């Protein structure tokens, strides 16, 4: 995934909560309180800020899979880091290990829309959520197989998020296609916290939303909502 921060204004220009997060929550039946892709507001040292949508970084040298005692979190041959909630024992060592805090825990009974509880569980969709297990962004592998881009990509009104494949060297923001390696190089994209050596496969093009008219001093990220919130 490539995230062009020049195009990300945290959806404040539209007066909406971050639409990547919101569409992910709706599409994935994300339990209340979790934001698998979460938009953080980072301050520049001398004033102003930029928004950083953070999905799972899908690290190649992923600390979470390295520490898992039961292999419940694992890397697929395609390079995706997924979680098998039917195997997870809930020790939360992976959560302590993730340097991006991209893992979330079902501390109690997960609050998800009642419709989602009747789904057949799948590792690739993590629906329905299971009590006492870890969850996180999964890059929607089931949808990609059907040729559909993940919810966050299609949900981004600014087309700032690119979903790609390093094997095919292609990426799309659901409007256009680019050669991934060229896009990365020409926009000097970098992984977040790359000096940690986790080798993430999410790359950021530095910016503060300038391409969609945000100046660095505009703030006011809105809060997302969960359909399951009203459920007990």
């Amino acid at each position: 995934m490539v995230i062009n921060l020049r195009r990300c204004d945290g959806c404040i220009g539209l007066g909406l909560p971050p639409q990547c997060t919101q569409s992910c929550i709706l599409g994935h039946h994300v339990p209340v309180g979790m934001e698998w892709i979460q938009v953080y507001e980072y301050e520049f040292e001398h004033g102003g800020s930029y928004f950083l949508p953070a999905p799972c970084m899908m690290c190649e040298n992923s600390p979470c899979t390295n520490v898992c005692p039961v292999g419940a979190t694992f890397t697929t041959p395609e390079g995706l880091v997924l979680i098998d909630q039917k195997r997870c024992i809930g020790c939360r060592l992976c959560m302590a290990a993730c340097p991006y805090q991209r893992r979330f825990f079902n501390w109690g009974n997960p609050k998800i829309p009642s419709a989602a509880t009747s789904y057949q569980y799948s590792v690739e969709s993590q629906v329905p959520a299971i009590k006492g297990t870890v969850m996180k962004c999964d890059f929607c592998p089931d949808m990609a197989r059907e040729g559909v881009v993940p919810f966050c990509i299609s949900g981004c009104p600014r087309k700032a998020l690119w979903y790609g494949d390093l094997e095919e060297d292609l990426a799309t923001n659901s409007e256009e296609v680019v050669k991934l390696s060229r896009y990365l190089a020409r926009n000097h994209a970098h992984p977040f916290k790359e000096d940690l050596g986790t080798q993430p496969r999410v790359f950021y093009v530095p910016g503060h939303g300038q391409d969609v008219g945000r100046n660095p001093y505009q703030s006011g990220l809105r809060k997302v909502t969960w359909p399951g919130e009203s459920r007990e």
Partner: protein
Amino acid sequence: MSEATRKYSQSSFDRSATPADEAGERLITTVLRPLTHTGNTYRIVVLVLFAIVCWGAYAYSVQLRKGLVVTDMRDHIVWGLYIANFVFFIGISHAGTLISAILRVTHAEWRTPITRMAEFITVVALSVGALFPLIDLARPDRVANIIIYGRWQSPIVWDILAISTYLTGSLIYLYLPMIPDLAMVRDRLSTSMSPLKIRFYRLLSIGWRGTSAQERYSSKGIGIMAVLIIPIAISVHTVVSFIFAMNLRTGWDSTVFGIYFVGGAIFSGLATLILVMAVLRRAFHLGEYLTDKQFLYLGYMLGTFAGIMIYFNALELLVPGFKMEGSELFLFRQRFIGEYAPLYWTYLVAGLMIPGLIILIPRTRTFWGIIVAAILVNIGMWLERFLIVVPTLRVPLMAHEPASYSPTWVEWSIMAGAFAAFCLLIAVFAKIFPVLSIWEIKEQLVSEQSNIVEEV
């Protein structure tokens, strides 16, 4: 002469050949007395402890029903009291076996009355401590997955391997030197005990008659275990530190963590040993054997380890503090002037400096001084475990407000239950097994006597 002692003098156990002298006889009656006589204080203490354990079990049942949501752990601070207590208990388990093994290997004679108790503490603390990761587990129903799908590469699997190896080793190391004593219980108390108890001791003493072959096997086994248990014990706490040190987190990402944990473990283990010794000495009138000398020597060791811990802390603070890389500033502020400053300063001053000073200054280096130091060290080391777990997890890794954590009644109750279980098990152990290694003390008495004879 009671019936029991008369039987003893005829027993084959009495292999010293010399007539059982006064001191040896007194030793045996004193040590074996708790096995047959139970006071009211003991009953009340056990009852209270048992009630607390039940309360902790109830709290755990609540947690089982509702999930970890009943704790105050959340997505940012994912571990809390349970893991802190896990580290603490595994730490005090080093009291025993490691200390007794080191002293045995180095032939320190003053350790003979201590070893048995130290080994008790190891087994009990290890059993209680090993429960905490299970209590912390959100899906204890899936614990078998660790065996079915276990990955050799995971620090948690290392923990399980190390702790199970240590527990097995400690049990052997506790049991092997106890066999002659158990045989003596079997031989001497057979008239004053219920048949069930007699069968129990007969079973455990596995036909020990003190034959030369048995002696040979026993001393060989003890010799092997005393050496083997040292690297195992060290590996255990090193591996415990790895569930922290293997993570890319400010405050945990440290190469010194392994030895830092081992140092802390021996430190708190010594303190716990001193306290347990003091309580049992009082309760079972063991003043003649657990003299102030034992406390003083253990006090010296405690003081040494206070120094070692001060050194480790200096390393842990100075090396990252000099560079202030990444989130170190946040962590340092939190420790020294922020949310955790009161606890952190208590740990540094009351848990390390003051105990060190108490041992260092001859005026305060008394029995009671050492007891105070041991209490402070235990409190300080518990705080240290807590401060390793929680403030580090509180350091935000992304741009968000730091989370907060204040343990709920469930967490406190389970912790109280665990401490009560520790005391209860020690109390029960002390009731069933001789708390001093009788045959070793006797051997020592004999050799001392022969020394005196030679001098004369």
